[in-house]
């Protein structure tokens, strides 16, 4: 697994629960306190060890931890870059949903080695969608749920999201768009603001 995911978990734990919690998770998982480098590659077992340790230290269900991670990835100021890259997917939330299928290819343009979950979107009509998520981390669908919830907020869309278990080896997420323009949403300039 590319260190990017591990690094994301590390930053999520540090930014949300504090440095002390990260140190406890690292110790429990047998990882050095410095943690991970986003651009290096680590064994998949390390990722699993960190997630298991985080679940134990936080005493919360794995699903909740993963969903919070997904929300963090697009709503925390420290990871503004990812929100921006996702917003390039489309002008509105529905267009964004459709762009998810291109996400692995888009990601590979910048990071050819990244192990991205396969994403398939089925438009079921009546503003209902079914997203299949095929990744190496069990529960990656919950990360997607948290991420989609935060992206809907970002676009100002009102959606219902539900993790619908597994089917054919993929985690299934049901999405119902109640109102595409429910709130103002956050502004998205194509250009990065000058520092």
């Amino acid at each position, binding site marked *: 697994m590319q260190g990017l995911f591990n690094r994301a978990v590390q930053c999520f734990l540090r930014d949300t629960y504090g440095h002390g919690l990260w140190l406890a998770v690292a110790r429990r998982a047998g990882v050095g306190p410095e943690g991970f*480098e*986003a651009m290096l590659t680590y064994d998949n077992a390390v990722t699993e060890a960190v997630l298991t340790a985080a679940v134990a230290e936080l005493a919360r269900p794995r699903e909740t931890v993963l969903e919070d991670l997904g929300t963090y990835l697009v709503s925390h100021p420290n990871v503004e870059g990812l929100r921006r890259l996702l917003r390039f997917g489309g002008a509105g939330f529905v267009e964004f949903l459709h762009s998810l299928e291109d996400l692995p290819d888009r*990601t590979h343009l*910048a990071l050819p080695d990244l192990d991205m979950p396969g994403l398939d979107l089925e438009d079921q009509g009546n503003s209902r969608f079914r997203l299949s998520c095929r990744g190496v981390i069990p529960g990656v669908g919950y990360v997607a749920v948290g991420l989609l919830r935060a992206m809907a907020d970002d676009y100002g869309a009102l959606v219902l999201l539900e993790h619908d278990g597994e089917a054919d080896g993929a985690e299934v997420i049901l999405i119902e768009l109640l109102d595409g323009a429910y709130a103002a949403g956050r502004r998205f*300039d*194509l*250009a*990065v*603001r000058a520092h």
Partner: protein
Amino acid sequence: MGARLKDGSVSFGPLALARLMPLHLAVNATGQIVNAGPTLQKLMNGQAALGRNIGDVLALRRPPGPLTMPVLLAQHDLALGVVLTSDPTVSFRALVVPTLDGGAFLNLSFGIGVAEAVRRHALTVEDFAATDLTVEMLYLVEAKTAVMDELRNLNRRLQGAKVAAEEQALTDQLTGLRNRRALDLQMKALIRLGATFGLMHIDLDFFKQVNDTLGHAAGDHVLRQVARVLTQETRATDMAARVGGDEFVVVFPNLSDTAQLMRIADRIIASVTEPIAFEGRDCRISASIGVTVSTLYDSPDADRMLSDADSALYDVKRDGRGKALLVGGPLIEGLVGR
């Protein structure tokens, strides 16, 4: 909104044109702008485009010259290079086709400065045709920048780790012998344990001449050869360290027999005095050695012993090089010049 098909020709209304080509301009035969795409109008900061002369709105950069109707209607193989007169920092490529009524139709696209133009004018996804890959390009620029930043930071951290690791290292990179740090640790350990040991401080003679006349590659080769000699002439339990450019120290645990140490020193001098072949040339050096043993001291001290051996070494150097001298003892014959 819509298009009309007739006899293989297509005509578009302004709304369809705006959607297909948001950066277009249509001018009549006199050069007056009759239609302008919405993104182009946005770039003009609210100045009206309609009714103005094309030459007032756009300036020609490639080919250079005034932007007139004859220039526009000339057959151009390449796209024209133009800038907005209201913001000359934003450059475009413009493809021009003549219209049936003597006017011209221009479709513009951003050049390589697109990211800057997008930033200056706060353009959004809606300002580009849905088929335009400009947004993908902006995405790539941003993703690439993020990855490069991350890699730059990673390299900085790795560089720091490398420097730290080198400081921790005990091996001399060039010769594979131990380094100064390893030597200090070894001597401290022997003194702490109360062990007796012999010490040689070795300085190469004529090494600078080899470096100056045959180059650094030859010098490096000589240093590696000397390292080989030191390894061969000492026991596995002895420690040979390179402590400076052409300076070496050897520690001999449990060896305080000065006669034996002087014999070893003699052998080392004899070996390094043999010509060392490098790329068809012979490098000729020798060595001067200062020797001391821990039993000469009531309470041996590493710095003191090194300093004494160093003094003996410089007595040798003053006396003509190529010899070994025991601290406090008389010079014995070395092998220089043979």
